[in-house]
């Protein structure tokens, strides 16, 4: 993915697809395509078509093109009896097709899926629409192209060469119009060998950009191609906002190319696609490569550390430097603010991720004949970009589970005295340094007996089920190899269920809680706001420093010798308030030289991950601090995945501390 143009294409197209999907689903839920919907859809597919054609992904462009045709018809004729749902199916199919192709391009493969069948279906759908609309194919053409002067079609030059004039206007926010104009000229060379254009000096004169912006880019050319073909030629050109294509019937008009001529009011000009893209909500947003932001974040992290290295420099101790400290305080304040802002750059609203679930719910609803309303709350809640990306899969899985297993069929619901259609709520909210994501359905709840039975079959029970709390029972479903659904449905129950969800959530430092009864299930995901900065406890073993995330620390204490014992294998254990914990000597674990090997000289830290705990023995605690998490160098990651290390960080004095990962230490 080196090519920035390709990257931009992929990014923009997938965004367009997402919005397109959103509009389609919205229209379907209302049961009717409003005029705005149709215009929006038309605009999206038009843009996709244009950029795909520019990137020469032909099958994407053709699919988008035929979809555009379909919506062109709908927009122009507003047929009243469109079957919304089948139309949605068709558009979504086209969306899926393009999505798949994008995925291929992303992976460096050629987008080579055959589009002909889909195209055929779209065009036959269009045909049937037209028939319903009670139009003969021929008549229809007259209507869609009615704006075109009929005289024009009759003019045929003897050599079959026709003269055209085109005035092209580029997108408002497009830059380097002269370059785009040059691209058009370049492409035109293949079609026509007799043409000229205004402004003439598009490549040499930078002012031509302004002229094009003001007056448009004007080309007169002769070609044996038909109007139709030329129309398509221009409409497939990227960044073209609108264009007028006119067939010229006399040579004089062809030869005179004046600025005046472009101030059009004459009847021979056909306004096409005017203001198609318009000043659509292109707000004050720029897209920046995430790597740049990561770099900036790293640098700011360094700056914060350097700042404290300067202002708390040991050389300054005891010196009466009032002005210096005043200036240093100001510096500290500003660096703190910068850090806050940089962190906020990485934050994205969770909305788009939630909206993607719309599509899943819609598809499943149709397949499973269930009625489900998806309610989305708090879509503006912002979460770190990396976390959002990791959240999508688990969320999708939970939504599928809820619709598939949770919500009952309408019939069952009615007999239970619930409303016919179930409600699935996705909610996000801030809670201190965490974000809560709630997936709530009002379905039948988790089947406790079923879970226990299944766990027993799979030998996952390690406790008497009667002694288990509800929470413990629900947690069984997170065990690998557990899937309660008897039948493997299309959507869930492939056995790679909740354990994967749990892993994904834990990978971003989150946790899952389940509550359930016969009135529904609530799943709560607790996600940290960001992964880049953590609260850590710094500790020392020998010469090495380590940082332990405070979230995994339960307590720290100096032990009593009598609580410590060894099991027959020589493993050291400690009893704390009646519970037995294994002892991990960090100096043994990582083979670090240290003087402190006696338990009463060092300190114990009880660490916790999920339900597992252990007692870590270290030399001393150095204090709590917020640290910026850095990955270990690539080279080291390549050599070996080191057990129990999550990364590293720089301490205030510039030295490096290794960040420990409790889950890696305990296992």
């Amino acid at each position, binding site marked *: 993915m080196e090519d920035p143009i390709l990257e931009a294409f992929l990014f923009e197209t997938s965004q367009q697809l997402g919005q397109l999907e959103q509009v389609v689903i919205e229209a379907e839920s209302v049961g009717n395509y409003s005029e705005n919907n149709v215009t929006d859809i038309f605009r999206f597919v038009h843009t996709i078509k244009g950029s795909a054609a520019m990137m020469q992904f032909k099958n994407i462009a053709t699919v988008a093109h035929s979809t555009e045709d379909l919506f062109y018809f709908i927009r122009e004729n507003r047929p009243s009896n469109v079957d919304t749902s089948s139309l949605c199916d068709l558009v979504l199919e086209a969306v899926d097709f393009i999505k798949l192709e994008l995925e291929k391009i992303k992976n460096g493969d050629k987008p080579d899926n055959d589009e002909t069948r889909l195209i055929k279906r779209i065009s036959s759908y269009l045909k049937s629409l037209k028939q319903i609309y009670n139009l003969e194919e021929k008549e229809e053409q007259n209507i869609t192209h009615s704006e075109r002067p009929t005289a024009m079609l009759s003019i045929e030059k003897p050599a079959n060469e026709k003269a055209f004039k085109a005035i092209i206007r580029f997108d408002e926010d497009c830059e380097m119009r002269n370059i785009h104009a040059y691209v058009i000229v370049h492409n035109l060379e293949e079609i026509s060998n007799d043409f000229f254009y205004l402004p003439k000096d598009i490549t040499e004169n930078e002012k031509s950009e302004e002229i094009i912006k003001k007056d448009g880019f004007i080309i007169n050319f002769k070609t044996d191609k038909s109007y139709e073909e030329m129309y398509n030629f221009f409409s497939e050109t990227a960044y073209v906002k609108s264009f007028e294509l006119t067939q010229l019937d006399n040579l004089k008009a062809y030869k005179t190319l004046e600025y005046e001529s472009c101030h059009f009011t004459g009847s021979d000009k056909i306004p096409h696609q005017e203001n198609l893209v318009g000043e659509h909500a292109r707000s004050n947003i720029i897209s920046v490569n995430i790597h740049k932001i990561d770099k900036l974040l*790293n*640098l700011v*992290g*360094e700056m914060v*550390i350097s700042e404290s290295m300067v202002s708390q420099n040991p050389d300054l101790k005891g010196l009466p430097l009032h002005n210096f400290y005043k200036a240093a305080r100001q510096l500290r304040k500003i660096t703190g603010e910068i850090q806050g802002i940089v962190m906020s750059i990485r934050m994205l609203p969770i909305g788009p991720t939630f909206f993607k679930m719309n599509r899943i719910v819609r598809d499943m609803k149709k397949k499973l004949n269930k009625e489900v309303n998806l309610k989305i709350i708090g879509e503006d809640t912002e979460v770190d970009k990396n976390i959002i990306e990791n959240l999508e899969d688990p969320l999708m899985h939970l939504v599928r589970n809820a619709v598939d297993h949770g919500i009952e069929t309408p019939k069952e619901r009615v007999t239970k005295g619930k409303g016919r259609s179930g409600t699935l709520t996705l909610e996000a909210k801030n809670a201190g340094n965490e974000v809560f994501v709630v997936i709530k359905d009002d379905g039948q709840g988790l089947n406790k007996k079923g879970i226990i039975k299944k766990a027993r079959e799979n030998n996952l029970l390690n406790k008497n089920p009667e002694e288990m709390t509800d929470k413990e029972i629900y947690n069984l479903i997170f065990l690998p190899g557990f899937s309660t659904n008897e039948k493997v449905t299309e959507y869930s129950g492939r056995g790679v269920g909740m354990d994967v969800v749990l892993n994904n959530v834990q990978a971003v430092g989150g946790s899952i809680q389940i509550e359930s009864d016969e009135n529904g299930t609530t799943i709560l995901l607790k996600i940290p706001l960001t992964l880049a900065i953590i609260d850590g406890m710094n500790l020392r073993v020998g*010469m*090495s*420093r380590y940082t332990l995330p405070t979230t995994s620390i339960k307590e720290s204490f100096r032990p009593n010798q009598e609580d410590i014992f060894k099991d027959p294998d020589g493993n050291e254990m400690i009893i704390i308030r009646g519970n037995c914990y294994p002892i991990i000597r960090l100096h043994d*674990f*990582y*083979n*670090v030289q240290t003087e402190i090997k006696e338990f009463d000289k060092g300190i114990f830290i009880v660490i916790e991950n999920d339900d597992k705990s252990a007692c870590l023995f270290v030399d001393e605690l150095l204090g709590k601090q917020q640290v910026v998490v*850095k990955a*270990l*160098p*690539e*080279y*080291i990651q*390549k*050599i*070996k995945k*080191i*057990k129990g*290390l999550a990364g*590293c960080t*720089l301490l205030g004095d*510039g*030295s*490096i*501390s*290794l960040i420990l990962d409790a889950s890696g230490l305990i296992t």
Partner: protein
Amino acid sequence: MSNRAENLVVQDEEDTQKGKYLTFTLGEEQYGLEIKYVIEIIGIQEITVVPELPEYIKGIINLRGQIIPVMDVRLRFGKPFKEYNDRTCVIVVDIKGVSVGLIVDTVSEVYSIKDEDVVAPPDLTKGLSNRYIKGIGKGSSKVKLLIDCERLLNDQVNEELLNLSKGE
């Protein structure tokens, strides 16, 4: 167009760097490293030990906020460890985007060695270090062993794999 210009600049740079080697010593021998890999040379710094790594990777250092691993080339070549002193240097190299610091006894200077003065190493000599030598430079002065940087970095991944499969 600007792309082409960029290419030209890059090519120019490569041309001026061609045939130039940064030389350093390990004990008696002089070694040469293609200058295009070298980012900078720094004195020995405080090294943070990272557990579970091969012996020749001493740990990581903080290079102005960038954390890079350091490799003791002596140990890498199977030579005995030598205490670091104020002449010990870390050569920071960038090999295909991977930054690594190489700890060497001393850094000498940059030599130009023409291609025709480079001969292939004899196959006869066995031993660890020979695997990382891709040529021998015959200059006016002492012979220089030219290091295959990519090998130096990437070979041990295979070694690790070998060790792993042996262990299991």
